[in-house]
């Protein structure tokens, strides 16, 4: 979707916190912000749900009524539908395990849309009927191409957030956990990137 992003005002905290904190704190104590289904995730889950429904329903009808017409396309549509369902559910659940599955789903989805998109252009004969991922999702306004990117960005930010919090909470008494968090942070990039994340949060 192409919604305009507001400038990074400090007051533009996406969280529904009642506290008058002017800083763009990424993680107020409100439990609502504590999940991948809130904030931008709300929109993400909605769009994922839409694609889960449309892709799987469409594949279901096609497989039931005219499977032999384009078996490869219809099976790929069904596969896409399953991946979308998985991503929708795991993003909505938002537990650490669910987030890990969501990362896999979004990655599979990104690889799928790129591979099937290329395949459908290189070998149109295999695709007499379109799939969700044909021509990189052009039949769906390229949303299938953009969606996994946003999904992965959202998941990455959220994972970092929880890691940072875990480090803050436990560092005093648990040096091992702190070290683990530090290493995990190092994976993502420079040490300064955590602060960058906080700023970026105000924008969403």
């Amino acid at each position, binding site marked *: 979707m192409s919604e305009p992003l507001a400038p990074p005002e400090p007051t533009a905290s996406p*969280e529904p916190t009642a506290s008058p904190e002017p800083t763009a704190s990424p993680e107020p104590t409100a439990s*609502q912000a504590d999940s991948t289904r809130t*904030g*931008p995730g*709300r*929109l993400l889950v909605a769009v994922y749900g839409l694609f889960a429904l449309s892709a799987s*329903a469409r594949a279901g009808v096609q497989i039931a009524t005219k499977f032999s017409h384009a078996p490869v396309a219809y099976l790929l549509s069904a596969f896409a539908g399953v991946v979308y369902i998985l991503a929708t559910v795991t993003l909505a659940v938002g537990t650490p395990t669910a987030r890990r599955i969501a990362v896999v789903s979004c990655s599979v989805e990104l690889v799928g849309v790129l591979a099937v998109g290329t395949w459908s252009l290189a070998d149109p004969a295999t695709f007499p009927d379109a799939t969700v991922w044909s021509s990189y999702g052009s039949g769906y306004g390229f949303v299938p191409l953009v969606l996994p990117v946003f999904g992965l960005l959202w998941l990455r930010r959220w994972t970092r957030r929880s890691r940072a919090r875990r480090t803050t909470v436990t560092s005093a008494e648990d040096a091992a956990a702190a070290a683990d968090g530090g290493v995990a942070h190092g994976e993502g990039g420079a040490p300064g990137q955590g602060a960058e994340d906080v700023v970026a949060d105000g924008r969403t």
Partner: protein
Amino acid sequence: MNGAVPTTIIVVGLALAAYALVMTALNRRMTVPLLAAVGVLEILLLVEVGIIVAKLAGGERPAGLATLIGYLIAAPLVPVAAALWGLMERSRWGPAVIAVAGLVAAVLMVRLHEIWPAIHV
């Protein structure tokens, strides 16, 4: 006359999406006027479903009947699901969900026309 309702749905859906996106951009939460607009869209969709069902009852059949029925079931659910999901969000992203519903309603009308050209847009 036949195309008046789908055309209205497209206009209302796009206007709703624009309105909701402005609210998202201005960092507003869900409001009563926005919900009322969703209600208008829902009523229009139900009217359109009624028109198509009447057509089917009259004996006319499109090529992709199964797909059409799927659309008839899904279309009225979109604004309801978006309103419920959006209301659970107390931030700018609630209206963003509503924007998606508006766009989807407009797209659904175009797709309906593709499935069954007898449904004019």
